């Protein structure tokens, strides 16, 4: 069953067309990874789906309902949650307060403060600590937990390993495995192709605001993704 449908979505930053007619679907329980070079439009696409960035045209449909013009807090209430690049926790609030704030728009579901502290045990001893004092990896896990507080139907994850030490990345992905095990529906941006192919069942590659390659993680080779990532086949075709 298609849970999230993006149709011919366009998004701009002033004069710059960052997302140019992107269409994709996400089935319930599926994990889809978005890869692409810096500036390919991945973050803008995620933010536009979440309502943090306005769509210039096109549609975002959640379970068939058009949410394109809804503000982000309404989308959270309907089940779209974003873990933004850079985590963006409230640094002066404790971990628990960060989670409670996110719970104000919560849908009914299995996630609440207690179940999240159970699922992410590294957060329990940190719950009364200001989020700004946590390490990057701890903050990332807290940011994922915060997004889950709303019991989303679709979880959007933007570069959860960005700027983290390798060990911290392992911790974050170990936490994510917990979420994936719950049958969550996830759209994630990930720079590390090997990791993307491991955690996602499908991969979409973006180049200059468009999707240029899509396939199942089993079928896609590193060579094919690399070619699409750099757009080198198109360059060869023009030569």
């Amino acid at each position, binding site marked *: 069953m298609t849970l999230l449908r993006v149709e011919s979505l366009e998004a701009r930053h002033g004069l710059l067309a960052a997302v140019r007619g992107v269409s994709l679907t996400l089935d319930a329980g599926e994990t889809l990874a978005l890869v692409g070079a810096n500036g390919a439009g991945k973050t803008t696409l995620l933010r536009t789906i979440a309502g943090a960035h306005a769509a210039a045209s096109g549609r975002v449909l959640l379970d068939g309902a058009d949410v394109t013009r809804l503000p982000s807090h309404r989308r959270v209430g309907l089940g779209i949650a974003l873990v933004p690049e850079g985590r963006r926790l409230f640094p002066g609030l404790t971990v628990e307060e960060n989670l409670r704030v996110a719970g104000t728009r919560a849908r009914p579901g299995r996630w609440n403060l207690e179940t999240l502290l159970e699922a992410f045990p590294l957060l329990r001893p940190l719950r009364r600590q200001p989020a700004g004092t946590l390490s990057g990896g701890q903050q990332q896990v807290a940011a994922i937990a915060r997004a889950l507080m709303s019991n989303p139907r679709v979880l959007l994850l933007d570069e959860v390993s960005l700027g983290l030490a390798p060990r911290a990345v392992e911790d974050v992905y170990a936490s994510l495995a917990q979420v994936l095990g719950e049958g969550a529906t996830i759209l994630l941006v990930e720079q590390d192709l090997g990791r993307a192919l491991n955690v996602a069942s499908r991969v979409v590659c973006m180049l200059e605001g468009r999707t240029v390659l899509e396939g199942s993680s089993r079928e896609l080779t590193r060579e094919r993704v690399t070619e699409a990532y750099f757009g*080198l086949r198109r360059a060869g075709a023009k030569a």
Partner: protein
Amino acid sequence: MTSGEFLSAEGIRVHFGALTVLDGVTFAIAEGEAVGIVGPNGAGKTTLLNVLAGSLRPAEGVVRFRGADVTGRGAATRSRLGIARSHQVPRPFGDLTVFENVLVGATAGGAARGAEARRRSLDVLERCGLGALANRRAEALGLLDRKRLEMARALATGPAVLLLDEIGGGLTDAEADELLVAVEAVRAQGVAIVWIEHIVHVLVRLVGRLVCLDAGSVIADGEPDVVMGDAAVVDAYLGRSA
């Protein structure tokens, strides 16, 4: 010709607080050469361009231009010596016309005056495909024309080297083709080009050599096909292969 004789950077180190952004980078180009610089986000590409342009002084290392040590010279002096650069985000003087914006570049540091400055500005506008827009206010320009203007302002200083910082981003395929024509015209006049660009398939149509930076170090330097096929380069962008 040894490429180091024209514009070179040797052993460049730059730190931003505890973070080492350039870690002993050595890089040189020959007169009239077109070189592309690629690398993942945070590799140090723009920082290297800033060091070459004189807007950032390295903690260690030497920048030489035409044999002279210019490490201590600022951007204005280097511009007069013949090193010009464009910026990632074009910021023209919005309420000046396109011609006036270019005239600012032509007269910067006393490079040209009066009729000579006007002649040079008009010439640069034509070369950059902006001739028909000379009297338009810069703030009314679209993205492609802003990028052309950014390049035109740099060219108006009469450089021997043009440093381009991601001028291809956000353009349609047709616009990127038009921009390439303009850059190619600049190179055809003997101006050396150092071009940072994320859009690799556009870059490789112009440059004969690519340098890849990762985490502040040069990890590949050579012909574009060879560099883009280098496993270390692919790993730098896409993570290590299993």
